């Protein structure tokens, strides 16, 4: 079943068109990779899907489980199962990670008409997940991402993903700034979440990440459009020949 359908999407930022008619369909259980040079609009696409303000959709639509995503507030999208692991997770001083996780999880549950998770159940779950991601407990007592290394910030995103159990996970440049060990831990965390009901969209500049998270479908993005889609061998091809051929195509 189609989980996410992006149809002929045109998006402007500050009067400038960034996405020029982008089409993308992601089905349940699939892992998609979106590759493309810097500035091709990958983060813009992820932000528009998550509902970040400042983007003007001038044409096209985005359906999530058949519903019009663009009509929903960001928090509604989250509660319905859209999760964006940010390229640059923000630091929130004064809000402990633990408090943030619990507040967010319960807000999502409330929006879905589910009861709040009891504190012991919640703590147990956080402990399990953070252990598997190699996140020390005292990190959870600190302000969200405050003083975290690049790798810790990315792992914190994966931690949230594991906790919130979204049906669509978009990972924006999860590999940027990570050394190989940190990358492996984060990728293992992501792979552990792979399930027949859940889809992943892995945005990356480099092929390297796709050695750890193996995609079913690879899309090449250039200048605000998907210019080519194919199997995982496309990633390898890109690694060898670079993006230049597609820049001209776009």
């Amino acid at each position: 079943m189609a989980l996410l359908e992006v149809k002929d999407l045109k998006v402007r930022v500050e009067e400038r068109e960034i996405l020029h008619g982008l089409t993308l369909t992601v089905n349940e259980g699939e892992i998609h990779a979106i590759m493309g040079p810097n500035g091709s609009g990958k983060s813009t696409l992820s932000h528009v899907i998550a509902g970040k303000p400042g983007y003007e959709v001038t044409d096209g639509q985005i359906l999530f489980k058949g519903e019009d995503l663009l009509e929903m507030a960001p928090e509604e999208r989250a509660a319905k199962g859209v999760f964006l692991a940010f390229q640059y997770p923000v630091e929130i001083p004064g809000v402990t990670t633990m408090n943030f996780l619990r507040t967010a999880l319960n807000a999502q549950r409330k929006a879905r008409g589910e009861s709040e998770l009891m504190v012991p159940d919640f703590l147990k779950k956080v402990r399990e997940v953070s252990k598997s991601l190699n996140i020390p407990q005292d990190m959870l007592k600190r302000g969200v991402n405050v003083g975290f290394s690049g790798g810790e910030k990315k792992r914190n995103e994966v931690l949230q993903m594991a906790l919130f159990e979204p049906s669509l996970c978009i990972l924006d440049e999860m590999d940027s700034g990570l050394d190989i060990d940190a990358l492996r831990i984060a990728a293992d965390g992501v792979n552990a979440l792979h399930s027949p009901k859940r889809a992943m969209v892995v945005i990356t500049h480099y092929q390297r990440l796709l050695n750890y998270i193996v995609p079913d479908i690879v899309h090449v993005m250039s200048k605000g459009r998907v210019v080519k889609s194919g199997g995982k061998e496309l990633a390898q091809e890109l690694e060898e020949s670079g993006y230049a051929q597609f820049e001209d195509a776009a």
Partner: protein
Amino acid sequence: MNVAVAKTGKGRAVSDLFTSAEGRLPGSPSVIAARREAFETYERLGLPHRRIEEWKYTDLRALVGEVLPLAAAPDAAALKRAAEAVKAHAIDGARKLVLVDGVFAADLSDVKALSSEVSFKTSRESLEKDAGLLTTASTDAVISLNAAMATDGVVLSIADGAQLSAPIQIIHIATAASASSFTRSRVAVGKGVHATIIESFVAAGAKAYQINDAVLMTVGDDADVAHIRLMDDAPDAVNITSQFVTVGANTKLNVFNMTTGAAVSRLQGFITLAGEGSELSANGVNLLQKTEHGDTTLVVDHAVPNCVSREVFRAVLDDRAHSVFQGRIIVRPDAQKTDGKMMIRALLLSDEAEADNKPELEIFADDVSCGHGATAGALDESLLFYLKARGLPEKQAQALLIQAFVGEAIEQIADDNLREHVIGIAERWLERRQ
């Protein structure tokens, strides 16, 4: 009463204020004479207005207009209502001293449970004896008015070396609508004392009342004292409070103010570090909404060398609220090695809210380390979006960020219980916004 707001009528109405109250004011003829003199000072100056530098941002003539007549002494019904309010606002384990409409209420207070190292009398008793309580280091119109009109208060003296495990909580309760209460208290803290003093201002059903309070406090050497003020008066009330604090040597003083109520409020504090080696931590939070006006004016006077002062103030302003923070650090010529820092931040939740932050350094010594910063701004959109993208609705995302913002001041409260209590007050304020 209308006469009072008319220009030509001001003097007359003001005189009525004093003469009609005179029968209720404690004091021998000589004390009454001192009060009359104070009243004349007030009458000559009138309510402070914007052309008086210290009151530039808090023009009481424009904001308040007239001083309401003295509240009647509370009757049985008023005391009954006050008793309910005491229950609701008492801090766990605290020894309560309750003032209802400016009059000490013995039956609602825990005088007998006070430590034997704390001597207590009412300000009424003190003023019946002499006018000592009426003298303050500086006088302006509202302080003079307070000296003239104060009906009661508490006079506490904490003996040298006392280690008080229970906090002392002075609770001001307003039951009388459209009337004024004037209170004046003195707290003398001896050497080596460990104590916590809390002051709470609350309404028991009363509306549109005015409070004018003065606190005279001295803290001896080698002491460790927390002084917490929680002002949650009715949304249409006025609260003007003046604090005079003198600190001895090698003492730690932790003061905190929380403003969550009153249409118009001003807390003016005058803290003098008069003994070497002392550390002052003075902090506060103003949570204001609608058209509330909250002013914190704090003068920290480093009179001697080698003291540290730290000030962290936060204001959160919704709707058309107006917050004022005037912080002055004075470093006297002898006060070398002074270390004084002040950080004021205002969070504007609405385009129509206003923050006036005025930090001032007056430094007369050359070997000092002093600094201040002041900012005002909205919530960070990128943080808000991050929280929303994780499922928090707008108001809840704001609430989380606001808690973090005020937390920077609240975390300066050393006592765990008190800090949690104050966090609870902030949380309830945020819930009212939802």
